[in-house]
């Protein structure tokens, strides 16, 4: 910093009262003291650093809201640490009270710091530039020269030059000097920036309090579909003030799902693009269609629908020992790797005489290479190469014990039945296999697909975005507008007119030496009978 700007008093307020002994501090003064501490620049700085520090653990410890599965796995693996971490809120750092305490304090400090500055600024807007200091050449950046022109000529020219450079000039009582100031908008930028942070926070808070985020797997086919009701979601993560009545009224179905694959290059077999052809209805409105793609969400009212995943849903029919259908339908299988080898579970608890459960793997495109089965990545064509491979259990699937994951078969009370040759049963599309001992049969009817959709509503997102943009605008003003004071004084001496020029940069970033040089050059450049 070049200048020791006397004007920068954000930290210490001028005109402090003399300190009294501590014993005389009454409650009001204590309060005032606390407030002054809280709103000091140093506190703001410390709180900022504290905020940065506090955000760190959330990136290293798995977070419940970010990845609940990973979190629970972590918790299972660290039994001693988990209760301690849970108590400290380390699995939900960004919702933890101590994290909130830091940013609330920061915001309080911000308001306490910025509001008074707002008033000061308001008053300062109409004030005059300050009077010219007595000894200009004492200022860090100053210059002087002697000229034959009269003082009046020099000062008039200086006024013209400075006005052209959009300085504001001091009007009254100047005598033989010019006092000019520019860059008032810098402080405005600073104020806008800080106040916008509050706006962003409000927008963000609205989203996390009143919004929600839910996920649902919807089978592809116009016979299936989704209606926006809480019961239809597979997972639902509402804000703490969310009410079901704020769910927008709409429904949709996925008529068709297209995947395009890369068929050459190092990532051959990787999906290149996805497209879900939706038919949707907003409330009682007419049916409309939309091609849902990654990065191109569908927005209905304030709600948005995102395509975030897809997979296969083999249609499986299980008949029991009496020949009745005990289970039938498309079964969602979860992809295990990028070749879409997928895992799924079938539970036919009420089959007679005994319940039937299947743990199944789905191989979308299996070929035999050197005698070993290999699953190829990419388009599966007509599904002729798809294989459904499963292990079967009979007996009680323990479903009365409480809620179970649909992707997990509880075999604790069941016994495995095996195929004659080995353990697993293998089926191609259209095939049926009989289970041993008259237990029943399993048919692999056909292959369907599913889409995983994320549906969310985040009120306040426009407010947050607007806030950040405003903040950026203010920031640019605050960083790049140079508040500057310039003085010119002209005095008659024996050698001629002595002209003194000085400048003061209040931001500390500017190169005031260049300003002085430039001004002197223009002042002299226009004077014909220049002597020195």
């Amino acid at each position, binding site marked *: 910093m070049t200048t020791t700007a006397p004007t920068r008093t954000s930290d210490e307020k001028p005109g402090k009262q003399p300190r009294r002994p501590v014993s005389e501090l009454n409650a009001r003064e204590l309060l005032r003291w606390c407030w002054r501490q809280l709103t000091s620049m140093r506190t703001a700085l410390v709180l900022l650093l504290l905020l940065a520090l506090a*955000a760190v653990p959330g990136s290293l410890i798995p977070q419940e809201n970010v990845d609940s599965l990973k979190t629970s796995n972590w918790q299972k693996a660290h039994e001693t640490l988990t209760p301690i971490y849970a108590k400290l809120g380390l699995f939900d750092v960004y919702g933890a009270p101590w994290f909130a305490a830091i940013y609330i304090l920061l915001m309080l400090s911000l308001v306490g710091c910025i509001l008074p500055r707002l008033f000061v600024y308001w008053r300062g807007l109409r004030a005059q530039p300050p009077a010219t200091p007595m000894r200009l050449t004492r200022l860090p950046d100053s*210059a002087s020269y002697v000229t034959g022109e009269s003082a009046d000529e020099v000062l008039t020219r200086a006024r013209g030059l400075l006005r052209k450079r959009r300085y504001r000039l001091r009007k009254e009582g100047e005598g033989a000097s010019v006092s000019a100031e520019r860059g008032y908008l810098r402080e405005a930028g600073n104020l806008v920036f800080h106040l916008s942070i509050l706006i962003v926070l409000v927008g963000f808070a609205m989203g996390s309090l009143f919004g929600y985020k839910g996920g649902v797997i919807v089978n592809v086919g116009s016979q299936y579909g989704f209606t926006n009701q809480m019961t239809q979601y597979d997972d639902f993560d509402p804000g703490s003030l969310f009410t079901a009545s704020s769910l927008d009224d709409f429904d949709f179905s996925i008529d068709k799902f297209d995947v395009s694959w890369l068929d050459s*290059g190092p990532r051959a077999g*990787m999906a290149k693009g996805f497209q879900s052809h939706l038919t949707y209805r907003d409330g009682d409105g007419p049916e409309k269609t939309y091609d849902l793609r990654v990065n191109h969400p569908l927005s209905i009212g304030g709600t948005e629908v995102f395509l975030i995943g897809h997979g296969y849903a083999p249609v499986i029919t299980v008949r029991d020992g009496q020949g009745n259908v005990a289970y039938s339908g498309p079964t969602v299988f979860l992809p295990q790797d990028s070749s879409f080898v997928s895992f799924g579970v079938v539970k036919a608890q009420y089959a007679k005489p005994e319940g039937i459960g299947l743990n199944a793997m789905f191989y979308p495109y299996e070929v035999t290479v050197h005698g070993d089965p290999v699953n190829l990545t990419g388009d599966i064509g007509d599904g002729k190469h798809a294989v459904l491979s499963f292990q079967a259990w009979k007996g009680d699937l323990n479903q009365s014990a409480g809620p179970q994951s649909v992707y997990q078969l509880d075999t604790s009370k069941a016994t495995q039945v095996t195929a004659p040759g080995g353990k697993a049963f293998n089926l191609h599309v259209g095939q049926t296999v009989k289970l041993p001992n008259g237990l029943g049969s399993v048919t692999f009817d056909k292959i369907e697909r599913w889409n995983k959709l994320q549906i969310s509503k985040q009120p306040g997102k426009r407010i947050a975005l607007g806030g*950040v943009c405003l903040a*950026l605008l203010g920031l640019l003003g605050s960083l790049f507008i140079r508040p500057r004071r310039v003085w010119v004084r002209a005095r008659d001496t024996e050698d001629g007119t002595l002209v003194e020029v000085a400048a003061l940069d209040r931001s500390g970033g500017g190169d005031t*030496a260049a300003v002085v040089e430039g001004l002197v050059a223009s002042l002299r450049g226009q004077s014909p009978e220049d002597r020195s």
Partner: protein
Amino acid sequence: MTDHDWGTLSNQAVAAAGIVYFLALLSHLVEWSALVGRKQAVAVAKEPARTRVGASAGGGTDTLAGRGAPTDAAGPAPAYVAEDARSERVALFGRLGYLLTIIAVACHLVALVGRGMAADPNRVPWGNMYEFTLSGTCIVAMFYVVLYRKFKLAWMAPVVVAFVLVVLMVGVLWLYEPVAPLTEALNSYWLVIHVISAALATGAFTLGGIASAVYLIKARSTKQTGWIGRVPSLDTLDRVSYRIHAFGFPVWTFAVLITGPIWAHQAWSSYWNWDPKEVWAFITWVVYAGYLHARATAGWKGRKAAILALVGLATLWFNFIGINYFSTTSQHSYASPAVSTIDRVEVLR
């Protein structure tokens, strides 16, 4: 040219850039070694040559870090004539190094373009960590070349060139991946803007951080000879650092708090997910906000602010490189397809 040709061109251009950066580094090292033992007196002797308008009192005279080129000096004192041959060598190798750096940056740019053209369809060159490293280093080098005159960055040359060279080599040796199309989630023009601005800010912060590091070294060092003598005054270092950071900060704000969330919103349905990459980008932002505050807070100017700038730089590069090894939840992983595996679905029915 076929895609394959472009790919080959890119690889060769990277190699060429690496070699030329290396030559530039050598040249700057020669320049430096000539400086060792050179007395501060020489630099001071040349200083008054710079004409200032009028007789300004006060301490605003920055020891300008000009090349120390003899042309600047209006006739050095005779006692220093022997030194002149030496400073000529310094100036020569300095200029050579700068010239080589410009050539290297040109090769570097060709490598970037080749990378983008090699993909089908053509695309921006940041599909994976290798390309990202390539882009990031290129931007640091370009900033340096462009700002060289404006901020008189000659003193920074060896540090910048060494930095770019090392990071580029790390990229080539450990991060290299063959050309491949972007996964679909990465295929968005918001992402293009996001990455350009993030890379620009990264480049700026890196340069600013170097200035701050040099500030700290100079502030600690008692001797004022050799390279340290050559480096500008503490005030100037502080100001250069501030101005580069002041450019970087709004750009980073734009990248991390505007375009990033917009893209995240499109791709993942939520504009802020507290994903580790986002968290660290936020931390970096807060630390740099702290740096800007520090410069305005009594008692934090100068040294402490410089330390904060380096902390910010550390968080920035940790986010870029380190976080991938600490956390696997990041959705910013480049290799894995954004859409396919759903391991999060834990449905209770």
